[in-house]
């Protein structure tokens, strides 16, 4: 039943996303593009936190590097060719390889601290580098285009085109991650999250698997940063900061949506961006409300908001005999 629920929900959600620009105003298309980009970033973080069990606090650095790679290479260019620009997000892969290679050797709280330290290192490097705009960052006045000869095939200057491009990236990222999670590699990383020590005793060289996962996640984060830079036309150190827009928000997204699922971070990105847009109209202390929501979800819905959907659906249909009763639902008094 859970399978049919999911197999129907996902295409339906995708259909709505595909059709949205036909009805929505360009403001909302832009907002949705931001959400899709954030969803890619959160999904990449979930590969680490939710699947591999690596709580990385430095993940925003790769998001930032993706954006800066684009901005540094093309800050004076008048045309940004997509086929030249897109491979630049691989800079994030390289950075992830180096940072991962060192950090992977630690675990638990030490891993959190070392990744946080790396993240802060990148942040301050860009914050204090006059060459790259310091805390002002870099502006990009053009958006990437894909051209063959002089014919422009894909011009991201158009808000709708950018939207579809971001959606395409998200869907591709989702499918790629779904594929590797079903493959032997995915079995190993989920086992590492469950019981690292045992996986090692079974003969796996776990550090290699962690490193590859770290690099895949870093690359995807770099792609998201690239898209964000191209979309907003502005790259600054706050991409990499751990509080304002970086890792804290990404972790909130993963927690709100539901970690350990690929669709959770996507739903989480919608919730967080919409909350950030809506809450400030209620009160100027909206961040207090926002924090409260994150805490309540973490407390009462540890599997995130997406765990509600199968519950609601299963309550409407007949409950499977072997499915456990919902934890907060009414309970039959136990026999005897």
């Amino acid at each position, binding site marked *: 039943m859970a399978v049919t629920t999911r197999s129907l929900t996902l295409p339906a959600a995708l259909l709505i996303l595909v059709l949205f620009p036909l009805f929505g105003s360009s403001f909302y298309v832009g907002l949705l593009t931001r959400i899709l980009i954030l969803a890619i970033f959160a999904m990449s973080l979930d590969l680490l936190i939710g699947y591999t069990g690596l709580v990385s606090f430095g993940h925003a650095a790769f998001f930032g590097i993706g954006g800066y790679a684009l901005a540094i290479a093309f800050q004076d260019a008048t045309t940004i060719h997509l086929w030249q620009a897109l491979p630049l997000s691989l800079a994030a892969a390289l950075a992830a390889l180096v940072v991962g290679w060192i950090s992977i050797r630690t675990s638990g709280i030490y891993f959190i601290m070392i990744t946080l330290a790396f993240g802060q290192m990148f942040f301050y490097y860009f914050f204090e580098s006059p060459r790259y705009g310091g805390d002002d960052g870099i502006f990009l006045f053009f958006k990437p285009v894909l051209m063959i000869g002089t014919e422009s095939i894909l011009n991201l200057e158009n808000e709708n085109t950018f939207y579809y491009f971001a959606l395409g990236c998200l869907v591709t990222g989702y499918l790629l991650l779904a594929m590797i999670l079903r*493959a*032997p590699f995915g*079995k190993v990383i989920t086992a590492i999250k469950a019981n690292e*020590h045992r996986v090692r*005793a*079974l003969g796996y060289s776990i550090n290699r698997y962690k490193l590859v996962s770290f690099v895949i996640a870093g690359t995807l984060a770099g792609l998201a940063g690239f898209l964000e830079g191209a979309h907003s036309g502005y790259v600054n150190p706050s991409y990499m900061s751990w509080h304002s827009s970086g890792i804290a928000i990404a972790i909130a997204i993963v927690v709100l949506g539901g970690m350990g699922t690929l669709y959770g971070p996507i739903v989480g990105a919608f919730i967080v961006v919409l909350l950030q847009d809506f809450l400030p109209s209620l009160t100027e202390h909206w961040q207090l409300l926002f924090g409260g929501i994150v805490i309540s979800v973490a407390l009462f819905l540890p599997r995130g908001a997406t765990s509600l959907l199968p519950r609601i659906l299963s309550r409407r249909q007949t409950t499977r005999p072997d499915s456990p009763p919902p934890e907060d639902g009414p309970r039959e008094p136990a026999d005897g």
Partner: protein
Amino acid sequence: MADTILRTDHLSKSFGGLVAASNVSLDFERGQVHAVIGPNGAGKTTLINLLSGDLQPDDGSILFNGKHITHLPPDRISQLGIGRSYQKTNIFNEFSCYENCWVAAQSRLKTSMRFFRPASRLKTVRERAEKALELCGLSRRCDTRAAAMSYGEQRQLEIGMMLATEPELLLLDEPLAGMGSEESRRVIELLRRLAENHTLILIEHDMDAVFAIAEKLTVMVNGRVLETGTVEQIRNSRAVQDVYLGEEEADG
């Protein structure tokens, strides 16, 4: 000369001031069931941990099939064909019984760095996992979440996972600990079957089980090897009797 599969040479390990293993030199013969017994704190589990690479020795060396495996990490030792089960159940609680064995069986692929085809299509892994489940007697519990199984079944799964890695030498750390008599009988039967084509190094407190399946015994006390011999030799050894009787007096 008998065919030695594993040899330890003056193996030592201490934790701070506590000497857990001291000058342990032992020969384990291929195809035998070799039990290591001794009172609590004798260093038996430390010995197993040294052999499996979970602990690194301070001194001494370990040879497996004539090759040095001293200071190798646990994953390399596992890949060489030494499997181990843990005294404290060490399984993937949230995985199904089948998935537990799957992860174990998949470790025998040349590499699991495979990203494209679904793992479930790998026939060799599936067969290996199913065979291990059948051997440890859990075929019927395939889809049960490991955490939802009884303690005895979890212990069986622990052994099943080890078997799914198709080891040549099995290190069993108290496989019967905490089991009911019916479950114990089943596991002893399983060990006896495994002994037909594997080498077993067994730590066990259940003396009836040890005498039933072991061909050779080593008695350890305070991290040292007190005596090694056949079951008869150990039964009749004055030194061993002193240790065990002495302990009982102290307990009483």
